[in-house]
């Protein structure tokens, strides 16, 4: 069944946007082609969640006007809590709605050839390099309607490139501030770690508005070529009313490793995909994710590791807390392709439900087309164990505090994996606020 979806933005609009931001021809063409493809493609079909009534395509504003920050002192307090306001020589990109609003990259990294800039500047100044990786290796525009829509309308994002043999110890941090209730995010993050390089990248999506009837269509591509290591941390904290499609996908070449630490704290309905393709022999992929669902929201998280290379290792650990009338679905997929011998696909998904009406589901899926492999899965959906509460309370801890400890403890093993202390602290605070 295909229903006709009329987009609010047409070819002429897209072309004029391309020329306003002064994009190279290949980028503008990619947009137009994707806009065309949009018509023929179908919507993605997340397992166990019906999204045909969700609005991913109708909205009013493609971009909103926002002013840049002249200094970090101007940041709203919620954002100040995430960054080191006093540090001088740090690696920090802040985007305000769609506007690149602050950028700082240390001289050391600049001299080593590291690129860390907004997606439009990257298209203008590092066009050839961006072209090589942008929607070519990890995510294609023509996968379904939402990838095509994203490619056609991308209006923000960041490009990170770490040259061969460069190992970055300090994290690169990006903060995407959503402070305009009319702003729709088509954000594209692309992180390339060239041979023998390593980096840690951490991003926050944060709404400072209470509620917003908009949508977010976020794509992330991580490419780790050969013997490279990427640690990718993300905390999504978008406001109530925002319908989010977020797809973070990594491609790991021979002996490369991509580690994801993801905190999904969105208040709106969310479809999230996180995929790691282990292309090269000896590649590793590791995803750790925490999720809190509350209110009426429905969230669906599909975490996939696909093993192509031999001796590849994939690990998925998802923990979710659901309260009130919220629904949280975890789909964990470990796929081992024929020929990926000696590979290991492991996954654990756990959902803790805090109320009668909360719904949780954890579906482990193993698709194995090779004999000589290891695979394992664990999944559980349950409520707070009354015997655990009894034990804590028997030491004098009141019930609410005992529940807080159990919930905090349930999420902590994943939260503790986040690479930046401030982000970890802030995520802990968000969790405490949400589960109270």
């Amino acid at each position, binding site marked *: 069944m295909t229903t006709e979806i009329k987009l609010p933005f047409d070819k002429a609009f897209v072309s004029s946007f391309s020329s306003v931001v002064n994009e190279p021809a290949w980028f503008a063409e990619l947009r137009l082609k994707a806009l065309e493809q949009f018509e023929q493609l179908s919507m993605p079909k997340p397992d166990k969640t019906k999204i045909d009534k969700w609005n991913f395509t109708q909205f009013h504003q493609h971009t909103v006007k926002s002013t840049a920050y002249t200094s970090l002192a101007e940041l709203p307090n919620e954002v100040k809590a995430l960054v080191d306001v006093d540090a001088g020589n740090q690696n920090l990109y802040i985007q305000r709605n769609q506007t690149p609003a602050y950028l700082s990259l240390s001289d050391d990294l600049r001299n080593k050839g590291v690129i860390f800039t907004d997606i439009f500047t990257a298209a203008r100044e590092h066009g050839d390099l961006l072209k090589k990786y942008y929607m070519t290796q990890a995510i294609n525009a023509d996968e379904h309607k939402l990838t095509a829509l994203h490619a056609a309308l991308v209006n923000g994002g960041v490009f990170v490139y770490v040259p061969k043999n460069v190992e970055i110890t300090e994290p690169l941090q990006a903060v995407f501030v959503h402070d305009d209730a009319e702003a729709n995010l088509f954000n594209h993050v692309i992180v390339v770690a060239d041979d023998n390089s390593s980096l840690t990248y951490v991003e926050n999506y944060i709404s400072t508005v209470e509620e917003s009837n908009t949508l977010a269509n976020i794509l992330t591509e991580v490419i780790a070529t050969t013997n490279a290591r990427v640690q990718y941390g993300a905390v999504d904290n978008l406001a109530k009313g925002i319908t989010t499609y977020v797809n973070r996908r990594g491609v790991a070449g021979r002996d490369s490793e991509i580690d994801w630490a993801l905190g999904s704290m969105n208040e709106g309905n969310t479809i999230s995909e996180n995929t790691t393709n282990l292309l090269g022999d000896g590649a590793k992929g590791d995803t750790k994710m925490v999720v809190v669902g509350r209110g009426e929201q429905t969230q669906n998280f599909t975490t996939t590791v696909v093993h192509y290379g031999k001796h590849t290792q994939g690990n998925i650990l998802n923990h979710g807390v659901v309260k009130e009338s919220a629904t949280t679905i975890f789909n964990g997929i470990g796929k081992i392709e024929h020929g990926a011998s000696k590979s290991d696909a492991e996954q654990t998904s756990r959902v803790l439900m805090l109320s009668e009406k909360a719904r949780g589901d954890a579906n482990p899926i193993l698709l194995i087309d090779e004999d000589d492999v290891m695979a394992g899965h664990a999944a559980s959906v349950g409520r707070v164990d009354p015997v655990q509460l*009894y034990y*804590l309370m028997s*030491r*004098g801890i*009141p019930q609410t505090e005992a529940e807080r400890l159990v919930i905090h403890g*349930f999420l902590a*093993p994943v939260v503790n994996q986040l690479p930046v202390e401030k982000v970890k602290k802030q995520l802990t605070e968000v969790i405490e606020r949400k589960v109270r």
Partner: protein
Amino acid sequence: MAGSTLTIKDLHVAIDGKEILKGVNLEIKGGEIHAIMGPNGTGKSTLSSAIMGHPKYEVTSGSITLDGQDVLEMEVDERARAGLFLAMQYPSEINGVTNADFLRSAINARRGEGNEVSLMKFIRQMDKQMEYLEMDLDMAQRYLNEGFSGGEKKRNEILQLMMLEPKIAILDEIDSGLDIDALKVVSKGVNQMRNEDFGCLIITHYQRLLNYITPDYVHVMMQGRIVKNGGPELAQRLEAEGYDWIKQELGIEEETVEQEA
């Protein structure tokens, strides 16, 4: 201040509708150490769980009071803050909550808001007691009971006892599964608590523990009742002769009331 008194009168307790305790009477005062002995399945652990307020155990009649206060009216955490402590036979494992965070929460819950223990003082105290119990100091930062061996869990229960300093403690089969060295350490911890303000009820079916912690009173439980009372010599006779002579004396054929624990 003189010690507290825990008074249990004609206590009847059921699990899933089945009556396990059929009228238990017991009084424990500060300064006293009581031991309840008896074969498996006679209701000993049910008594300890009922005193602490385990959700599965239903008190159908009788009373428990602490210094005249109705314990049965209190929530589990209130019982603890009133001065009761239960070292459990099977302590829960709680992922993601460190031993230290847990203990600090428990101490602060007693002290109340605005009167929290200072972090330094807490760490010093915890280190000191862990050393006394010959525990690896790393265990402070491990998740509560998770992956602990049987002996480590028991030591950890005694560590909590020493840190929380209750008025009346119940030790539910704290000796089961312990080797002799661990048993000595656990006993050392309990003996250190011994003073006129501290009352203790030890539940065991081995006399062995009582070689290290000498009780003032020994009670024998069968069929959900206390059927015999005595001093330390009673424990020794039970060790030497078993329980059959009591059964004969009282005309009891089947001593149990519950499934094997």
